[in-house]
């Protein structure tokens, strides 16, 4: 019995020791918590910044971080690279305490997050860049919630498809033959009918063995972003707007206006390319083919300028120039301009431009985007993040960004200073010749349906060549195809959620 009592006592002692230990633990963690609090007031604020890969690889991010850290060292704010994938999913990671404090993304991506409140709304008037950035760029980051307007990003630069060509590939007689208006600019860089005519001329004079060595305009026609002019110039749009100006994803506009004419033009243009325009072949080989002269011009985005330049330099080196000479020559000859500004209103690219009146043209409208900074709703340091964005969108940093990365800034003061092309892009945005990607989540659903139909229409040009029956022979066919695009997008957005 005594032994049993001893056992009970021993058990009791073990429990009381354990309780004591637990007590110690809690008091310890309490003191830890106190010291954490004290630390918080003195500790340095560390902001995690997510930039795009080009900004990292070209050294701009480091430049930005160094400049910011030097300027804010006294305030105890430090910015570091978030070291995450540039397309890291804030919606999946942010709520659980992961993800960046500040992120640089395209407006559609950033606003997809904003729609679910993963990005903070900002008082844009407080930013130093406010008065220099046009309203159109700010609108790319605007959203309406419960009848109230919010801005969830600060614009940095504009993206739009550009035309790349080589001046040394211009025909020798271009001023006599291809500059009918005598404005010292080739007509084929000014309107699509002349670009079509010039492409046709190059195809007809191609003397290579399989007539596969000389093309004019080349682009992946199945790519909505790179070939958007065939839709938006003809009255097409992505999503309509409600009466109060908010985007209405139920109103899908790929078949609106005269997009059937645009698709007819796309098919015509495909006829002067090779089958590479049906898939992403041209997107992959455009750098090489422009450099070796197989393509006169190709469509790409401004951030790929360095890739074209690199290939052209290598091409010149292979021709016997030194590295330095090749680089200089490549810089002189490689041109990046906006797409020709006029398209035929009836979609017939084969019509002679000199026989057309002003009313026969429509303005070329391309799809574009505005990249900018947003602040994660899950940041612990909202004010410091605002400070960072203000710094990164200031004159100095945007100028540095433009110089290092060749971007087209949304700040008017920097754009003016950067020269013709940048200024031109800036003006196109202000003049409505850039259709900004809608800033809502539903925009994710537009890519595959458009890619399918645009690829199919481009393929039609080759069906005819092979003697197969063509699918698109009338305006009704093109219209029906665009209605299918609308339907597929609607299905993707709504059918399953109803």
């Amino acid at each position, binding site marked *: 019995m005594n032994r049993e009592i001893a056992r009970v006592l021993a058990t009791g002692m073990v429990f009381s020791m354990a309780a004591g230990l637990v007590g110690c633990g809690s008091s310890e963690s309490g003191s830890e918590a106190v010291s954490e609090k004290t630390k918080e007031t003195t500790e340095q604020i560390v902001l995690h910044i997510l930039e795009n890969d080009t900004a990292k690889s070209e050294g701009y991010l480091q430049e930005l971080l160094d400049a910011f850290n030097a300027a804010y060292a006294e305030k105890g704010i430090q910015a570091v690279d978030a070291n995450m994938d540039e397309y890291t999913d804030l919606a999946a990671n942010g709520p659980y305490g992961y993800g960046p404090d500040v992120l640089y993304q395209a407006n559609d991506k950033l606003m997809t997050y904003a729609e679910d409140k993963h990005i903070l709304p900002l008082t844009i008037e407080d930013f130093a860049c406010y008065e220099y950035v046009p309203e159109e760029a700010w609108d790319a980051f605007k959203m309406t919630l419960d009848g109230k307007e919010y801005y969830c990003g600060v614009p940095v630069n504009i993206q739009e498809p550009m035309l790349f060509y080589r001046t040394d590939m211009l025909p020798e007689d271009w001023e006599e033959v291809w500059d009918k208006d005598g404005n010292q600019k080739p007509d084929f860089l000014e309107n699509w009918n002349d670009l079509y005519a010039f492409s046709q001329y190059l195809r007809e004079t191609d003397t290579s063995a399989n007539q596969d060595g000389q093309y004019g305009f080349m682009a992946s026609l199945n790519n909505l972003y790179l070939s958007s002019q065939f839709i938006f110039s003809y009255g097409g749009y992505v999503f309509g707007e409600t009466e109060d100006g908010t985007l209405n994803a139920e109103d899908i506009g790929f078949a609106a206006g005269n997009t059937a004419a645009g698709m007819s033009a796309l098919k015509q243009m495909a006829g002067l390319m090779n*089958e590479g325009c049906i898939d992403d072949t041209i997107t992959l080989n455009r750098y090489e083919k422009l450099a070796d002269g197989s393509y006169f011009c190709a469509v790409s985005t401004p951030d790929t300028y360095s890739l074209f330049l690199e290939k052209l330099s290598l091409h010149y080196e292979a021709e016997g120039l030194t590295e330095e000479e090749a680089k200089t020559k490549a810089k002189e000859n490689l041109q990046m301009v906006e797409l020709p500004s006029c398209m035929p209103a009836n979609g017939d690219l084969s019509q002679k431009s000199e026989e057309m009146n002003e009313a026969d043209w429509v303005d070329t409208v391309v799809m574009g985007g505005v990249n900018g900074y947003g602040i994660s709703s899950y940041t612990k340091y909202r004010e410091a993040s605002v400070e960072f964005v203000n710094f990164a969108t200031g004159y100095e940093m945007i100028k540095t960004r433009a110089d290092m990365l060749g971007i087209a800034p949304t700040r008017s003061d920097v754009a003016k200073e950067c020269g013709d092309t940048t200024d031109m892009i800036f003006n196109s945005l202000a003049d409505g010749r850039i259709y900004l990607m809608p800033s809502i989540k539903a925009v994710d659903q537009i890519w595959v349906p458009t890619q399918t139909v645009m690829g199919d229409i481009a393929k039609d040009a080759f069906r005819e060549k092979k003697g197969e029956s063509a699918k698109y022979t009338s305006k009704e066919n093109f219209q029906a195809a665009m209605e299918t695009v609308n339907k597929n997008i609607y299905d993707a957005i709504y059918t399953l959620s109803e």
Partner: protein
Amino acid sequence: MKKNQTLTQMSVPVRASLIIMGLGQLCYKQWIKGLLYLSVFAGTLLYMITTGIKDIAGFFTLGTEETDPWLGTTGDDSVIMLLRGLLAFIVIAVFLVIHASNVRDILECDKKVRTGKALPGFARAVSIFFDRKFYIAALAIPVAGVLVFNVLPILFMILIAFTNYGGDIVPPKLVDWIGFDNFRKILSLAEIKDTFFRILGWNLIWAFTSTFLNYFGGLGLALLLNKKCVKGKSFWRAFPILAYAVPGFITLLAFKFLFSYGGPINYYITSNGGNAIGFLDIDAGVKAKLIGLVVNAWISIPTSMLLATGILSNMNTDLYEAASIDGATKWKQFTKITLPFVVFSTTPVLITNFIGNFNNFGIFYFLRGGLYMDGYFLASDTDLLINWLYNLSIDNNYYGIGAAVSLIIFILTSFFSLLVYVRSSAYKKEDTFR
């Protein structure tokens, strides 16, 4: 002791343990065992009071208050609540299992005390347990692992199929239970239903054909390289192994380039004056399906070949000698000796291959992704169910519908696998080749 005692007939320690785990054991002075049971009881009680009951309630409501990240207010996260609710049910299930063992143990103790037998000490009881029920001790940790890493995600996926999670309803918005609505949509919305059955038909043809092709391709190659007349067998065997060693998606991207308009095949066709062929474009149809089969064979045949080579090395060559003496032809020897032996040994692998091919996501995603065809709902004519599932759940965020399709795939593959397995020799004549 009677097997079915009423509560009043039970001794006090038994009744105590029924109500509070371990209490009866403590009454019988089984201190350590009693305390262990008691701590499980106390732990579960504490868990239920602090979070378990709330988690179970949350499982049914899936949240009532939305988080507002702009205001910094923390509301309910439906997906986490679903997961925590599921975990609470698992904790209750585990508790019931332990409680059952507690009841069995106290009844046994009670029986021993009544019959005047001495109760073993804790160390002795553990030793007896390990001796008599070693399988439980050995399997406890793996089973726990399977529960956490396999069963929990599967249950979670099954439950998601009954919610409206997806589309616009993603956290921080609250998710709701919608019963069988997702299944109803798949089977009743005309377009979705048609797409589902079309894809299912092609999926079955694909799974059977590719499994057959890969299996017999590998076996044929192994038999060929086993021939005495083949010189430099190791050298030739290295080639398929090289194909096997290259990561699958790299091979698929290489094949995509090979068959693209700008790829080498079309280069040679156009260089010789022909018209480029759209091997994988929108009109490709059957061509793309055949290319998919060939590319899958390229990736999978080396595995089958290695497997068959290993099995063939165990073949009893005397059987062939005897068959030759009896006048059996080479074909007869193959169908009556080689094939049954190889098939017998590889039936489970064959089933795995079939399921793998049924759910082969990579082939058509890499070769021909990014097409929505006429007559298909957000899919193309080469998409398999798994690709459609991806289009629905990842590209278009319909997680609920995606989970419902997954569940249907799971049921189908389980059905075919079990059907094949129970009808196979490997199952029926398990010890024939021992």
